[in-house]
């Protein structure tokens, strides 16, 4: 594709992808007329050709964006369509759906109360992030502020490894390690929200830690210097100057971790007990939106009220994801309003 040019000419004039320009023929003519090492003519593109090139670039990149946006829109519409069918076509009361405590799609009188799953999802999410956040922030501080070379050479790859472990592996470890521990400690079967939260904590830990490390790295070095110049110890500089500056980013990391925890299905399903009843405590069997969805969707015939009800659960998940994204943007916007973009 690229025309042959001598090194000096290439340095002088940027090599243009002539094949894309429609001027290849002309170049070939010139190449034939002149010796092989003729420098590329800088005027190889006429004005209309340049305009065409601009337009093509815009078209190509714009089309990709359009396709992706279309896919996202289609996803939202199809989930909403199927989910709303439960309310519009099957006559399920939305309020009863969100607050009802009984989930029995196949009972004689079908009941679609999603509250147990919503509560279960919220509980495992909140608890897992509460477990992970302090450790994450502490690890990030060590890896960025205390020992940066260890942080970048050893700790970050380890976090990437942990983030890449398939969730089924976490689930298996949960079954074989966490469940017996919880069972021993509480005298129950061990299945439940606590076990789910512990397993999830390991899964959201790399997410929160990596994002927090990025945020701490982005805090200008001048903040640390200024604090040290004021006679503060390194620790005081970290707690007093660096962490407050990084706070919006740490909150964003937390919300991203929560989004991951809220949407995780397989590992949770393996340890949460899968009883769609309002959880009575941290160790009784429970269910989450995702666990009910993964367990149920294969068993329902499409178009039935039971399938629509599952879609409605998916819609709740989707809305929650949107809420998480909204929170991330709100945090960023608030920090910007207060301190400017700097």
């Amino acid at each position, binding site marked *: 594709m690229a025309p042959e040019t001598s090194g000096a000419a290439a340095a002088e004039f940027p090599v243009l992808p002539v094949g894309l320009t429609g001027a290849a023929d002309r170049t070939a003519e010139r190449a034939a007329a002149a010796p092989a090492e003729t420098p590329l003519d800088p005027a190889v593109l006429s004005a209309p050709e340049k305009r065409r090139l601009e337009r093509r670039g815009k078209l190509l990149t714009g089309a990709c964006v359009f396709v992706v946006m279309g896919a996202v829109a289609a996803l939202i519409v199809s989930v909403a369509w199927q989910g709303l069918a439960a309310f519009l076509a099957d006559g399920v009361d939305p309020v009863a759906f969100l607050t009802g405590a009984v989930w029995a799609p196949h009972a004689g009188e079908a009941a679609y109360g999603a509250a147990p799953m919503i509560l279960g999802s919220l509980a495992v999410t909140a608890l897992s992030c509460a477990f992970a956040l302090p450790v994450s922030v502490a690890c990030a501080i060590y890896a960025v502020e205390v020992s940066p070379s260890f942080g970048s050479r050893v700790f970050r790859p380890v976090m990437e490894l942990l983030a890449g472990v398939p969730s089924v592996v976490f689930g298996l470890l949960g079954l074989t390690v966490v469940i017996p521990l919880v069972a021993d400690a509480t005298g129950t079967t061990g299945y439940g929200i606590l076990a789910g939260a512990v397993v999830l904590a390991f899964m959201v830990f790399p997410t929160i830690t990596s994002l927090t490390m990025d945020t701490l790295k982005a805090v200008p070095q*001048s903040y640390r210097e200024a604090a040290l*110049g*004021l*006679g503060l110890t390194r620790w005081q500089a970290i707690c007093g100057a660096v962490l407050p500056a990084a706070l919006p980013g740490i909150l964003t990391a937390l919300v991203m971790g929560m989004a991951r925890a809220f949407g995780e299905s397989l590992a949770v399903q393996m340890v949460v007990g899968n009883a769609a009843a309002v959880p009575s405590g941290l160790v009784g069997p429970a269910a989450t939106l995702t666990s009910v969805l993964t367990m149920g969707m294969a068993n329902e015939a499409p178009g039935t009220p039971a399938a629509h009800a599952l879609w409605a659960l998916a819609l709740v998940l989707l809305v929650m994801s949107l809420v998480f994204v909204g929170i991330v943007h709100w945090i960023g916007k608030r920090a910007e309003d207060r301190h*400017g973009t700097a």
Partner: protein
Amino acid sequence: MNVMNRNRRQLTVLDLLGRSGDTRTRTPRGARTHESKPDVQDRTNGSDRSVQAWTNGSDRSVHVHTLATKDVSVLYGDHRALQGASLAFDAGTVTALIGPSGCGKSTYLRSLNLMNREVPGCTVEGSILYHGQEVNDGSVDSFALRRHVGMVFQQPNPFRMSIYDNVAFAPKRHGVKGKQDLDELVEKSLRDAALWDEVKDKLATSALALSGGQQQRLCIARAMALRPDVLLMDEPCSALDPIATLAIEDTVRSLAAQGICVAMVTHNMQQAARVSDKCAFFYLGELVETAPTQGFFDNPRDPRTQDYLSGRVG
């Protein structure tokens, strides 16, 4: 004298206890007046230390500089960035450190408050005396020294918090408690930096909303909030426009008039001529010449200084 006693006593106590945090938090800010009292106690505490004994013995007969260096060399790894600089700074004077880029002037300035200790692989050799007391032998906690030797950086670097919190930040962590004390300290520091009138109605707004020149004066106020007696400034105006630069220069002069010892790195020779009492010229890692500012510009002695001032090198 008052100031000297205060500082010497704190450093002595810190030395002897071998720790910093507790002592610092117990020392109330603004308690300057009654801190000159325990002079006797000073001697008792310091008597078992030869440096201290020497200091105490000499400060009546010989003039002790606020800050002085003897043969200070700085190495980054194997690279010698500064070779044998000896210079003294006195209360109430502004010393300009000038020279071309990479001549070692900023490196020298950052040695004075032991900031280079934070740079991995950096070693500072030679003697740095604060009120006659050696601080470069590891005996003095650098965190304690930096309370008395403030620093202002090249880029304005206010913290991402309100104007008030920026100034109150360090005093709070050094044990100043009570809203009234802090309020007074913040006002006084902002007045020191000639910023009070501009920001007194918006102390709670973000420091980052200020202009560059205001931010730099806020950084001066933040340093002054610890009531240091030395202020080190590393090209404080290089990121500012001429009007903001003049405001900083006025501030520097008024600080010197209050008895603060200012050491200021600058690229700008007009600035050095306007602001400083004494100039020190650095070239290729060497302190070439030190002279009172007037004489320095009118007839520099060293040929290298002559070349630099006339624009032939640099």
